[in-house]
C-alpha cells in the first residue's frame, strides 16, 4: 500500500464500495471525487454552512469534518439516496411544491438535515423546524418556504 493511503470499505445509499483512499481526504471529497456522487455540496469546508450534511449510520453529520477513512465500515446516505428510480422522496416533493429552493446549492444539506430530523419528529412545529435547520445556511429563500416544506413534508403520508 502506498504511504498515506488506506483501504476503505463502506456502504453508500445501499451500495457497497471499496476504495484505496488518501488518509487526509475528507468524506465529502471522497463522495464527490472518488464515487462521483456530486449531490453532496461543499460550501465553507469548516463546518459552518451545512451544505455537505449527510447521514452516517442514520445520524446527520458534516461530511467535510470527517475523513473518508473514518467512515470505514459505516453506512452513508447522501441526497442521491432519497429518491427511488422513478419518484422523488416525499420530502423532496414538498420542497418542490413549496418552492423551498432557488439556486439549490444548500438544498442537499437541507434535505439530509430535514430527513434525519423528520425521522425523530415526523410532524414538527415551525419552531422545532427552525431549530433543526439552524446549522444550514441558505442565501436565497429567506428560509420561510424551506420551513414550510419541512413542516408539511409528512402531511400526505398519513
Amino acid at each position: 500500500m502506498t504511504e498515506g493511503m488506506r483501504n476503505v470499505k463502506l456502504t453508500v445509499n445501499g451500495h457497497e464500495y471499496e476504495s484505496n483512499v488518501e488518509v487526509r481526504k475528507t468524506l465529502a471529497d471522497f463522495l464527490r471525487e472518488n464515487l462521483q456522487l456530486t449531490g453532496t455540496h461543499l460550501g465553507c469546508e469548516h463546518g459552518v454552512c451545512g451544505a455537505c450534511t449527510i447521514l452516517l449510520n442514520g445520524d446527520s453529520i458534516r461530511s467535510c469534518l470527517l475523513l473518508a477513512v473514518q467512515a470505514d465500515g459505516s453506512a452513508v446516505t447522501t441526497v442521491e439516496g432519497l429518491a427511488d428510480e422513478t419518484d422523488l422522496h416525499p420530502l423532496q416533493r414538498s420542497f418542490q411544491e413549496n418552492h423551498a429552493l432557488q439556486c439549490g446549492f444548500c438544498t442537499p444539506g437541507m434535505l439530509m438535515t430535514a430527513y434525519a430530523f423528520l425521522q425523530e419528529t415526523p410532524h414538527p412545529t415551525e419552531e422545532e423546524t427552525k431549530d433543526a435547520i439552524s446549522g444550514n445556511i441558505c442565501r436565497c429563500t429567506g428560509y420561510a418556504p424551506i420551513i414550510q416544506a419541512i413542516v408539511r413534508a409528512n402531511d400526505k403520508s398519513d
Partner: protein
Amino acid sequence: MKPAKFEYLVPDDVEGALDLLRTHSDDAKVLAGGQSLMPLLNMRLARPKVLVDINRISGLDYISETNDGNISIGALTRQRLIEKSTLVKDNLPVLSTALGSVGHVQIRNRGTIGGSISHADPAAEISALCLALEAEFVLKSHSSERIMNSESFFLGQLTTALEPEELLTEIRLPSLSDGWRWGFQEVCRRRGDFALVGCVALIRLDDSGMCLDARISMFGAGETPVRMREAETRMFGSPVDSSALDDVARLVSEKLDPVSDIHASAAYRKQVGGAIARRSLEAATNQGKGA
C-alpha cells in the same frame, strides 16, 4: 486535498492511544469528534505530523451514575447522546440544556464532551458548566493517572493542563442535589453559533429565600471560562432581590476581561455579560430547580 499530510494512526484501546502519545508526544494531535480539529486541518491552521484517531476505541463512551449519585461520562461520548440521555435529563438537566446550544445537531452528533473540553475554546458551554459544577477530569498517560479539578485545567485560550502524552478519559460531574437551582443564558448571532458571551449560574437558597451558595461561570468573554467570585460572594447570605442582582451585573461587568473581535467589542461583551449573569441568576431562582 484540504489538510496537509499527516501520519494517520488508529489505536483500538486506551493503552494503545497512550503508547502512541508517548512515542509521538508533541508531534501528535488527538482526533476525537473532529468538530474543531477538522476545520483547523482543512484550513491548514493545524499541521500535526501524526493524527491519533481515538474514534475506534471502545469503552470510552458511557454515561453512568456513580455510587455517590454523581455522573461520570466517558470522554468520547458524543454530545448528542448526552443531550438526549434520560439519566442526564433527570439528574443534571442543566447539562442537557447547555448542550442544546453547542453547535448544531450535525455537530453534536459527532462532537464529543472530552474533545470540547480538551480543545478549550473560551466560548465553549461545556467548559463553563464544568467550572460551575466544579467537575473533575481524569487525565491518563502511559505511566500515570491524575484527577484534576476543572478550575486548574483551563490555562488559556485553547490551552489546558493536559501534557502532550496525556489523554482526557473521563469527566466527573456532581449531580445537582441539595436544592441547587440553575440558570443558563447566552447571546449569539445565530442559534448554535459561538456565544458572544454566556453564563451558567447555580444557586442554593434556604427556606426564607436567602442565598446559601452561588456559582457564576462566564464563557465567551475571556481567555478561559471564568468564575465570578466577587459576584458570588455578594450573593452569600443575601436575598435574590433587585439590589443584589444589580450588584451582580455590575461586578460581573467590571470583572470580565474580554477581547474585541469582528463579532463584538469588548465593551459590548462586558455590558451584556453583566446582564446575562443577572438573568441567569434570576432564571435559577425562579424556575430552574436542579434535580
